[in-house]
């Protein structure tokens, strides 16, 4: 081999090497928060909101001096709403020495990536709502919103007591979020003595809802429960109005979110939902959050923004209670921790974690009136019946 060739090949190999070796970990002067967010793909809307919520909290905390004197460093990566990518990014976050991982939001992704954070014993806050997330025996996963198993009984209670419905048609999106919700609500409704007369599956990204709405109409149930992601909810609501559906439409946070109201316009009026988090809650801290978020990002946050924001403050509260930057100790502290909004305004509402990582909090029944969410009822936390 000539020296010229040797030099050329060594150069090529060196370049490839340089590009494939990730950067070394930085000094320990900051607390690393690794953010795994859906910034593209089906979860882009949710992921972007969650990221912004976390970001705003990080900025506020840093401006106030950080946690235990150290500033927070927020690393952002895009999972592309792909569980495989999320898993890889979780591995990378662990490699980079993250203190805590935030995200992914989508249940399908967190189910996979949390195996990595569990293995590395890194606290992992997620916005996912699927019930299965906290049933895996993972002591390092923590929710920032209700599990479907907590939320759905509340919905069922409203449908039975508030609407006095005897039969319900269930429309859901054919992904892990939708199917998990469908399973939970079906069980909750049956427990409440209500019969589920129609089980209508729709696709993620579905455009034409004439067939599902037709099925809902012909099922002739007393009420319709819709559990799809935001854009699809908007399309469903429009089709329901178009076909003149006149029975109560009930849903969860994704049915009456700000985005849905914007996209569905008039068709959203009258929809009722059980909402774990809403920027329109009659709560001065929440309204302040709404205003700050709008000022920073120029649009109104959805529930995912609140999840991200409150999650960071929950972590802060736990670190300060534990007194040291020890992941295992902080995770232990979080289990069974109750945080009051009076002491930690950042959590916006009192919340408590149980030993599985589930959280308990007030929630709301909202109705969309004239393009805005109006809180009809405030429901107390489950275990404070």
């Amino acid at each position, binding site marked *: 081999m000539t020296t010229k060739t040797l030099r050329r090949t060594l150069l090529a190999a060196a370049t490839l090497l340089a590009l494939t070796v990730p950067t070394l970990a930085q000094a320990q002067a900051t607390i690393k928060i690794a953010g795994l967010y859906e910034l593209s793909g089906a979860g882009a809307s949710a992921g972007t909101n969650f990221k912004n919520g976390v970001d705003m909290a990080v900025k506020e905390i840093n401006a106030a001096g950080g946690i235990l004197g150290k500033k927070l460093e927020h690393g952002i990566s895009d999972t592309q709403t792909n569980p495989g990518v999320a898993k890889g990014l979780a591995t990378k976050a662990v490699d980079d020495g993250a203190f805590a991982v935030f995200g992914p939001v989508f249940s399908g992704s967190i189910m996979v990536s949390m195996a990595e954070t569990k293995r590395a014993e890194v606290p992992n806050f997620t916005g996912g709502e699927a019930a299965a997330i906290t049933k895996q025996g993972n002591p390092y996963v923590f929710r920032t919103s209700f599990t479907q198993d907590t939320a759905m009984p509340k919905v069922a209670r409203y449908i039975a007591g508030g609407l006095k419905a005897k039969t319900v048609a269930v429309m859901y999106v054919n992904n892990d979020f939708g199917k998990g919700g469908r399973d939970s609500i079906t069980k909750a409704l049956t427990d409440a003595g209500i019969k589920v007369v129609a089980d209508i599956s729709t696709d993620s990204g579905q455009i034409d809802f*004439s067939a599902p709405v037709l099925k809902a109409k012909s099922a002739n149930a007393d009420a319709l429960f819709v559990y799809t992601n935001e854009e699809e909810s908007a399309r469903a609501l429009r089709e329901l109005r178009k076909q003149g559906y006149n029975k109560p439409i009930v849903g969860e946070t994704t049915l009456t979110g700000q985005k849905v109201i914007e996209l569905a316009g008039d068709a959203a009026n009258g929809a009722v939902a059980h909402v774990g988090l809403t920027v329109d809650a009659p709560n001065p801290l929440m309204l302040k959050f709404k205003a700050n978020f709008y000022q920073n990002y120029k649009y109104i946050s959805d529930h995912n923004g609140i999840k991200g924001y409150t999650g960071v403050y929950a972590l802060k509260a736990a670190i300060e209670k534990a007194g040291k930057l020890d992941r295992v100790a902080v995770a232990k502290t979080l289990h069974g921790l109750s945080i009051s909004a009076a002491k930690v305004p950042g959590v916006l509402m009192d919340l408590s974690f149980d030993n599985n990582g589930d959280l308990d909090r007030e929630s709301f029944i909202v109705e969309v009136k004239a393009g805005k969410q109006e809180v009809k009822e405030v429901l107390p936390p489950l275990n404070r019946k």
Partner: protein
Amino acid sequence: MTDFLQLVFSGFATGGIYALAALGFTLLWQASGTINFAQGEFVMLPAFAMLGFAAFGAPLPVAFLLTCVVAVGVLGWAFKRGIADPLLRFGLMPIVVATIGLAIAARNGVRAGYSAEAHSFPSLFADKLFNIAGVTITLADLGTLAIALALVLGTQAFLGKTVTGRAMQAVAQNTESATVLGINVPRMVFYTFAINALLACAAALLVTPTYLAKFDMGESLGNKAFFAAIIGGFNNSRGALLGGVIVGVCENLAAAYISPAYKDAVALVIFMAVILFKPQGLLGRKVERKV
């Protein structure tokens, strides 16, 4: 029965939109052998362009006209000169890959540069509902179908009855003979690209109120456009309309009567059957293989 009619009618409306996207696709293939895997994005980009112009205060018709002009320039001329012309010499693969890359770039450029969220889009039609014999139809459904039909038939008429149109057809059928006859082939091909751009703008105007302007709206639309184009006939413009309607109606009927989870399968099965047994499409002409 009214349910069935309801589904069929909704399917017609959606199908009209698929037909518009499919038509442009078919024309490009006929005139220049370009397979445009970014066809869906060609509808997405004008949709966002119109939103952009509207944000600057332009009313919808003005925004539409401005977008048409920009589209002819960018999606027509620039696309042809920049990508199609240099690559067509090398066979089909490079252009397929280049348009795939273009689709990825367009989708993610909009996502990063504008927004990852869905945006509402003003509808051309007022929000009126008609109830005919138990079937609910919106003014938008009727209007979309009418306009799509008009555009398809109009394009067909243009291609068949005007001199320019026939010159374009000649170029599509046999480029060498067309050159010999004195037809300005590059210009004719450019007209095809321009028409495709205009049809895409029209499709954007009609479809975005329902689809909602989102960076990935082009993906599924592009897929359906392929199926529609193939089913109807890759070398026949009316085939695009037939194909689009078949896809739209079948989806709805399948969702209601067979299984919502497999609704895409019906269009697929028809598509595969057409490919395997009548590859030129339901209305297409058989194409001889050159040795």
